[in-house]
């Protein structure tokens, strides 16, 4: 394998505490090395920024609802198609790009790992087929558990061991990565056209509350010691006043401690926090609850969050929160797609236009920026757009610009039609903080990698870690003349290495690397009861047989990388 040495770049690596020192980064055999031979190819990075490859903790980039979005939105392809070019397959789509384009776009921005945030277990094969066709980046997928009948039935009686055995089984057959919870109980209620809007609303028939589901899943997650914590999208998303439900959900983690061998410290990851931080009682007095939420998270070290930044684009919302999408189509009257999945979950899709001329959208934009600016520990707050829900992931450079430059924020605020309302309903105008490159590396590399339990592999540039490296045309020693230069620099990397293979050079794809599918293989003690329950559910209630459920074989997961967990000792 080729050796490389990236010379004289300004290196930002929170894993080693490097804050912009001029350092050489050596790459050998796919790993970061202490030194390389004189035959190593030299990459001159003087006047450039060097970071580890970025880690996406939450995006909807593969699977049935993403593809439903592609199928039912031909308009998303208008002016966004890219032709075959060199190694690149043709692509298309702005908010829901085709799989090939997804891989290329992430790589060109310096991302080398990404997590698909919601995999309906029954559709695991579909998710993996798309992951296989997404080049370059390592990917994992989170199966959804929060409305799964097995989980509801076990946790009703607080059967943590059985829940854990079921999680282990499902992660194995779906090649899943973590425990995702979406609108716990509410999505099951949606199968009857209902919802659970607080953590204490009982789930129809199952006689359990969202609070019991979340608590039980955290306990089961820590019982197993999985790499990632429970990854939660709480009840009552997107409604004025929802921050109270969010705080109720966060409080469920009180007193819980992380137990795992992967270096993860949190027990709950709250995703797309922006959508859960709304105060007010209606769309008229809608205001930011970012302070309340970040105050709580700042004080409670066992919680991590990601932002869910609104990027002010036309996009396609998609979530396993089925009742929310039905609510949304009632608000914007755009086309509504929904798919209820037997025994497991549901998904909804609705296009959405975040217009800078609408006060609510502008306030959402401000809340998304307030959250990372108010968080005291950047290692516990990660930048996402909940792609494509608050905006496409291709807008990360723009979000970075807003976070790194008060001037850029002010320019945007001044461009809003309802500027006064944005300033009165949020505190964005009074936040002077500008993110440093070191904090950026924490929020996009070291932090998410640690919380995903991948801190030993990626998110840093320590010798021995995977050689995922991004070199940006950004000179940290020079003052930024124009904030737009930040956006330009983070849009297209000078160089990107994925596991030691050069995949991007001067913003163009030059290699497809060795893409891997990350999954978690948990060994648990034999649990005949759970196996019998699974067998019974397939015979009686599933529409497919158990033997045909597993995503198996080369076609679905051609290059697997399993994180091994042994939970047999407990």
């Amino acid at each position, binding site marked *: 394998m080729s050796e490389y040495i990236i010379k004289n770049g300004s290196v930002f690596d929170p894993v080693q505490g490097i804050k912009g020192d001029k350092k050489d980064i050596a790459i050998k055999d796919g790993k970061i090395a202490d030194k390389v031979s004189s035959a190593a190819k030299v990459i001159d990075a003087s006047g450039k920024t060097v970071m580890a490859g970025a880690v996406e903790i939450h995006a909807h980039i593969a699977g049935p609802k993403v593809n439903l979005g592609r199928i*039912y939105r*031909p308009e998303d392809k208008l002016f966004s198609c890219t*032709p075959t070019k060199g190694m690149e397959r043709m692509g298309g789509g702005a908010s829901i790009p*085709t799989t090939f384009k997804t891989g290329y776009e992430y790589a060109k921005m310096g991302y080398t790992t990404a997590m698909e945030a919601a995999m309906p277990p029954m559709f695991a094969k579909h998710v993996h087929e798309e992951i296989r066709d997404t080049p370059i980046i390592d990917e994992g997928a989170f199966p959804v558990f929060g409305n799964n009948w097995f989980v509801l039935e076990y946790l009703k009686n607080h059967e943590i061991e059985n829940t854990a055995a079921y999680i282990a089984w499902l992660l194995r057959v779906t090649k899943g990565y973590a425990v995702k919870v979406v609108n716990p109980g509410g999505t099951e209620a949606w*199968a009857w056209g209902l919802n659970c809007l607080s953590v204490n609303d009982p789930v129809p*028939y199952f006689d359990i509350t969202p609070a019991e589901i979340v608590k039980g899943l955290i306990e089961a997650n820590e019982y197993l010691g999985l790499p990632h914590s429970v990854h939660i999208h709480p009840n009552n998303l997107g409604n004025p006043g929802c921050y109270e439900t969010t705080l109720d959900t966060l409080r469920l983690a009180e007193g819980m401690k992380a137990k795992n061998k992967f270096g993860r410290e949190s027990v709950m990851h709250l995703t797309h926090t922006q959508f859960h931080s709304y105060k007010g009682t209606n769309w008229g007095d809608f205001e930011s609850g970012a302070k309340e939420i970040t105050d709580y998270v700042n004080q409670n070290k066992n919680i991590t969050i990601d932002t869910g930044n609104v990027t002010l684009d036309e996009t396609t919302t998609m979530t396993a929160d089925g009742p929310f999408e039905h609510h949304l189509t009632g608000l914007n009257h755009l*086309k509504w*797609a929904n798919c209820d*999945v037997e025994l497991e979950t549901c998904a909804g899709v609705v296009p959405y236009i975040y217009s800078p001329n609408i006060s609510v959208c502008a306030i959402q934009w401000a809340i998304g920026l307030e959250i990372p600016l108010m968080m005291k520990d950047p290692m516990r707050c990660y930048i996402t757009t909940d792609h494509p829900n608050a905006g496409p992931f291709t807008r990360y450079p723009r979000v970075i610009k807003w976070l790194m430059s008060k001037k850029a924020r002010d320019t945007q605020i001044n461009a809003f039609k309802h500027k006064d309302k944005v300033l009165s309903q949020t505190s964005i105008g009074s936040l002077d903080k500008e993110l440093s490159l070191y904090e950026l590396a924490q929020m996009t590399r070291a932090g998410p990698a640690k919380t995903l339990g991948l801190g030993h592999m990626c998110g840093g540039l320590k010798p021995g870690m995977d050689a995922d490296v991004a070199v940006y045309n950004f000179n940290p020693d020079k003052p930024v003349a124009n904030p737009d230069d930040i956006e330009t620099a983070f849009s297209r990397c000078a160089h990107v290495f994925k596991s030691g293979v050069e995949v991007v050079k001067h913003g163009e794809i030059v290699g497809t690397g060795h893409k891997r599918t990350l999954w978690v293989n948990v060994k648990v003690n034999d649990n005949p009861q759970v196996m019998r329950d699974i067998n019974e559910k397939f015979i009686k209630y599933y529409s497919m047989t158990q033997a045909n459920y597993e995503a198996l074989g080369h076609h679905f997961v051609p290059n697997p990388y399993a994180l091994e967990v042994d939970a047999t000792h407990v």
Partner: protein
Amino acid sequence: MTKTITDVICPFCGTLCDDIEVVVSDDGKQLLEVYNACVIGSEKFLHSQAKDRVTKPRMRQDDGTWKDVSYDEAADYTAQMLAKAKKPLMYGWSSTNCEAQSVGNEIAEISRACCDNTAAVCHGTTLIAVQDIGLPTCTLGEVKNRADRIIFWGCNPAHAHPRHMSRYSIFPRGFFTGKGQMSRKMIVIDPRVTDTAKMADVHLQIEQGKDYELLNALRVAFKGEWLPDVVAGIPKEKIREAADMMKSGRFGIIFFGMGVTQSLSKNHNIDIAIAVTKDLNEYTKFSIMPMRGHYNVTGSGEVFAWQFGFPYSIDLTRGFARYNPGDTSSIDLLVRGEVDAMFTIGSDPGAHFPISAVKPIANMPSVCIDPHLTPTSGVSKLHVPVAFNGVETGGNCYRMDNVPIDCRKVVEPPAGMLTDEQFLVMVRDRLKKLKGAA
């Protein structure tokens, strides 16, 4: 000794039953018996054992006779045909697996072809309607476990999807539907008294081509507004009865077929059927699902969508994907004489396209990849027989509700026969050389 293989997937219709049992000979070369499948499905399995099956590629000679050729020669001809053509059409894909579809898309991209699947003459109109208005749907297990209102509109599952009613929609006893058929009300809308219609609680024998009017009347009836005495041949009392039945359910679903997608008004019928479903979600929970025909037409749309961004009728001739059914759809391309090479796989346009679209195929370089002798293989220059997907090779397929199910190989293909995917890989590699692609 014989072996019984369980949990086999039936590669016939979009119902994609996965509980088939197949008995094969000890050496795995002969398929002897099929259990659990419907009559059509059994025949699909057993047909692979026909002794007079074509097992070698055949090239049509100038005098009209056929000459056996090797797979290598067949791949050469196909690759050269695609390399030379300015606007080749690659049509079909609905009766093969997603692996083959994926390789086919690579070929299409290199040769800048038009790609289309059988939705073009089937549920393509459904896709257009979904693009207009969305789609509230569910998996078939939801129907089994929850549905107490079942509507079949312009479809006849008793004959076209024979196990649909027993596996998913009418008879099964699910979690919240413990009484099976007794816990469900069944409405059929069909101008004919089909075997499905005979089973219905309510059969609305609609005047042919008046689906839009009746669906519109249902929307009016949900709101309790004024209706004319008769709409689409149905008295208003009966429409109100059906509307009340739909509204009073806990979980309902509309299944619809070619009777609405390919009759007068086409996609507009589906538009309003989806609007009816959306309306019903104000009162209760309702879904709608197209009764997809071929066992993997759904999969073809999925693979097209994640690779090119559109579900069917895609034109790659400009080097990027364009989609404009009516312009880029197969029949229109053929009838307008825009296509200069025809590549067919896993489908039979010769039997299903209008004759004005079939004639041009006979007059241009053409390849038909299909295990069977079909009208399409009859008009093509080259016929490449392949192993039966789902019988002699596995591969992923998508059920009508988009659920992926991996087909199984149960028996060896005749010696020397290739699968769709293997043959397409040969074509792709040759084409890459011809085009100098990376």
